């Protein structure tokens, strides 16, 4: 890595200029838990690194009206210490918390996990399921995009030169709305998802599902929103027949690869099982959630 240039600006505009003005590869740095590993292996050879953590807007969690705003570079350890967010969206917090060790949680961020663009990124499915959006800064100003519009393939994003995520907007849950995220790994800790599944449901007063989003990770080149699975949940309670239709719909949405973590057949089967289990948790949480308690 000869001639690497490091800067740590304190404003978004300065960071955009530093990233957009680079001739070679310019990488924004949040926790660095992916970037530094990729640099060491030689897979990524940036000319410019722009540390975003000195920009006040990029660190911390706040509530603005009917949404949470999470600074893009906020480390996991700070996210799961936030009681309001943990109560509102336990699935999102669970997904982020599953990434790596306590040491990794001291640094790893939602933006890094998203923009590293791994199909197995644990924090992404529940964010998509909650209909979260990313606020993106760049040379053309700011824009907002749904989370599912960011990752376009393994290691690939839709962010243009000089663009980076500033913050995430997550709507607060409606009454009787909640979420869950589960991943399957063959160990108990410190591994990468074989399959991940985020489920976000809204129930009516009688426990019937009125809205749902089911999102799978690690079974296709990007996270998959399983529309068909959501349709199977809407208008139903979580009875056995609904669960088996959900399971089948999740399996049909899988386009996985075979690798050392699992075969195509195995991943497909596990996707159905995780969809069932995550839905059961999300329904239970949503049923227990009363109006006005956020």
């Amino acid at each position, binding site marked *: *890595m000869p*001639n*690497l*240039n*490091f800067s*740590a600006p304190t404003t978004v505009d300065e960071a955009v200029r530093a990233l957009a003005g680079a001739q070679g590869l310019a990488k924004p*740095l949040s*926790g*660095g*838990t992916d970037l*530094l*590993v990729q*640099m*060491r292996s030689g897979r990524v050879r940036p000319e410019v*690194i722009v*540390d975003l*953590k000195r920009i006040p807007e990029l660190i911390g969690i706040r509530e603005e009206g009917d949404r949470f705003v999470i600074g893009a570079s906020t*480390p996991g*350890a700070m996210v799961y210490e936030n009681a309001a967010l943990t109560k509102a969206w336990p699935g999102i917090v669970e997904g982020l918390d599953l990434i*790596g*060790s*306590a*040491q*990794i*949680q*001291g*640094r790893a961020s939602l933006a890094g996990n998203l923009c590293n663009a791994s199909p197995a990124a644990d924090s992404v499915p529940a964010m998509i399921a909650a209909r979260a959006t990313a606020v993106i800064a760049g040379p053309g100003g700011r824009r907002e995009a749904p989370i599912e519009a960011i990752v376009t393939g393994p290691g690939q994003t839709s962010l243009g030169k000089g663009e980076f995520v500033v913050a995430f907007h997550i709507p607060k849950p409606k009454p009787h709305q909640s979420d869950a995220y589960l991943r399957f790994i063959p160990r108990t*800790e*410190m591994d990468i998802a074989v399959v991940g599944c985020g489920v976000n449901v809204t129930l009516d007063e009688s426990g019937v599902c009125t809205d749902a989003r089911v999102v799978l990770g690690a079974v296709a080149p990007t996270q998959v929103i399983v529309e068909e699975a959501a349709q199977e949940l809407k208008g139903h309670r979580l009875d056995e027949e609904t669960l088996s239709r959900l399971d089948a719909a999740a399996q049909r949405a899988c386009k996985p690869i075979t690798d050392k973590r699992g075969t195509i057949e195995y991943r497909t089967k596990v996707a159905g099982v995780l969809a069932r289990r995550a839905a059961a948790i999300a329904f239970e949480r949503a049923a227990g959630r009363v109006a006005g308690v956020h």
Partner: protein
Amino acid sequence: MAKQHVSTIINGEPVEYLCEAQQTLLDVLRDELNLTGSKEGCSSGDCGACTVIVDGNIVCSCLMLGAEAEGRKITTIEGIAEGDKLHPVQQKFLEHAALQCGFCTPGFIVAAKALLDENKNPTEEETRYWLAGNLCRCTGYDKIVRAVLDAAAVMRGENPPSPAA
């Protein structure tokens, strides 16, 4: 590229250094500041041998650039004891023989100290999950977990029985 000038606080002392942009904090600690207690195991954030505390959070110093340390407060294994007095975690590692080759020990002690700063009475399960980011190829972990739980008891002012000989 000009070297980065960094002012930081390490183990309570103001420290200034110059580093290359690509040098990790671990490189700086070991090669520039001669703080060689933090170990380089995997260089990819898997083994935890380079664990240090930055502004209250444990991090792998191999996954942080030296230039990022500007203005931060860093504690390394060299800052865990108070002068000649070992930290209870260090004392219990000795008493329980919670180390063999010793390469992973600094990382475990820093991580365990950070756990006990936050949680005075961790369960065995909490302790094992917290230490999941530290790998040990010698001990089988059990003695390490016993040492940490015993140190927690000492720090709570309890007087647990000595470990079996």
